[in-house]
């Protein structure tokens, strides 16, 4: 399965990962249009955390034991057994945000328009997730790992 890691020692906190994530999850896939013209504005699924000199970005860890999936009240969240990706079915999600309360990473976002949680989907249309592909300092790295059972 794909996993994304951050090497915070080379992260500059530029936030490009967030911009590309937002664009990738837009309808137009165009940076300018996505930010200026799309309503509702697409949501990034990655957070950039900064505290003084320290900065890093964080997105869903696609945990081996996904407590969000186990806590989901509706069955909207699941861990795909083939890819290991933790996915959300926005139509089944009811926006109770229980997953947000149990995520130790603070990696999930409320999509108030859809009343559904928004999260990293590892960019299913891309070979390499856009946050990794566009990190100017290669602070984000992609790995391919065995799915733990």
């Amino acid at each position, binding site marked *: 399965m794909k996993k994304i890691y951050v090497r915070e020692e080379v992260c500059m906190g530029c936030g490009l990962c967030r911009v590309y994530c937002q664009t990738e999850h837009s309808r137009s896939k165009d940076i300018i249009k996505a930010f200026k013209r799309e309503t509702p504005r697409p949501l990034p699924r990655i957070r950039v*955390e900064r505290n003084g000199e320290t900065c890093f970005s964080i997105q869903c860890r696609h945990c081996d034991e996904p407590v969000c999936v186990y806590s989901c009240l509706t069955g909207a969240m699941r861990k795909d057994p083939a890819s290991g990706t933790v996915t959300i079915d926005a139509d089944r999600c009811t926006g109770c945000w229980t997953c947000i309360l149990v995520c130790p990473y603070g990696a999930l976002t409320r999509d108030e328009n859809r009343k559904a949680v928004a999260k990293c989907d590892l960019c299913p249309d891309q070979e390499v997730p856009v946050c990794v592909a566009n990190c100017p300092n290669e602070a984000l790295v992609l790995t391919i790992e065995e799915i733990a059972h």
Partner: protein
Amino acid sequence: MAKARTLKTKYLIIGNSAGGIGAAEAIREVDKAGSITIVSDEPYHCYSRPLIAKYLTGERTFEGMLFRPLDFYEQNAIDARLGHTVTGLGLDKRTAALESGERITWERLLIASGGVPIVPDTTGLDKRGVFNFISLDDARAISELVDSATKAVVIGGGLIGISATEALSKRGLEVTVVEMKDRILNTILDEEASRMAAETLENAGIRVITDNTVAEIMGKDWVSSVVLSDGEEIPCSLLVVAIGVLPRIDLVQGADIKVNRGIVVDRTMATNYPDVYACGDVSEAYDFVLDTNRLTPIWPNAHIGGRVAGYNMAGVRTEYPGGTAMNSLNYFGLDIAAAGIATPPEKNVYECVSRREDGTYKKLVMKDDIILGMVCIGDIEKSGILYSLMKDRVNVRKFKGALLADNFGLVSLPRRLWRERLGAPQPEQVVELPEEEEMEDVMDE
């Protein structure tokens, strides 16, 4: 008379909700062949019980409430006997008797039978128009009447009561909720948060009555009004009784199974009786805040407890990490995330810090610098980080000041804590990216 049929199964699961499904899935992960039978008196494919409120408002159909896809039982080779009631257990002979007269013999048993609504001894409860609100059938029955009713009363300002209140209000009824204690949601929220929740309900046109109870239910055949302890009479043609649930322990009463308020289970979700397990609302499992067993009848704990039970039943030893009272709620757009002890029992032993800003509220309850309770209203997106500190019993003395700050995040924690959360890649697993120029070509496509 023909001899009653006897079925054999390796795993018998009583209950087809969060816990039972969690157990069945865990068993199938590690035992592909062992026969699994699920028995439930509800005749429905497993559905999300919390969504009955959305069913009542019309926001969800039954199909939209399914907890697992329609082919779930088939895909997992589960014999689902839905709409069947287990009437008795023979623990020593490892049998279960069904109402139909059939018998099931099992090797391992999980009791995930859930809860039953608490029925008060109020006069007039047998009138028509009086309902509970814990099952799809309840929601369906209310649904059928809702268009012909204009006024409803809900007894109980807890989680179920408030969710019924919101749903009925959204269906256009004039709703009054009556809470016995001095504030609604008093078991999961503190005073300030309860006040904010009550205000939200009142802004939606709901009447919130506290420190009061329904003394009598009036009406001939149908409910027509309720009379409160202080004598006030409130007209209503629909009455929802939602004062809580109790473990559904009828099957083990008188058996050699240890029952306190619920069925007592150890960290493997096993009861004291060999090969008999329990989880969910019927069980008393480990609570990591109180460091003891107690009832925590919430969906996630039932599901996680069920998974742990399932693994252990299938021979893979797994420990329940513990749960606590933990709820994320949304009433009329107000997001509430709360866990653990919201109101400390003795003020001088616990330290409380809180922060109130327009529309948002955050509070932590700590003891010896360990978080034991939390309430977040409005701003809940980082509540999971706080909850994880609580769950891991992290000493927060050195960074307490940052916990309620606006910009609180992972990076506010000591480096050791966020570093371990971020994880580190194994160098040999890192994917080499194409050189930049090639990369741009890829992006242009």
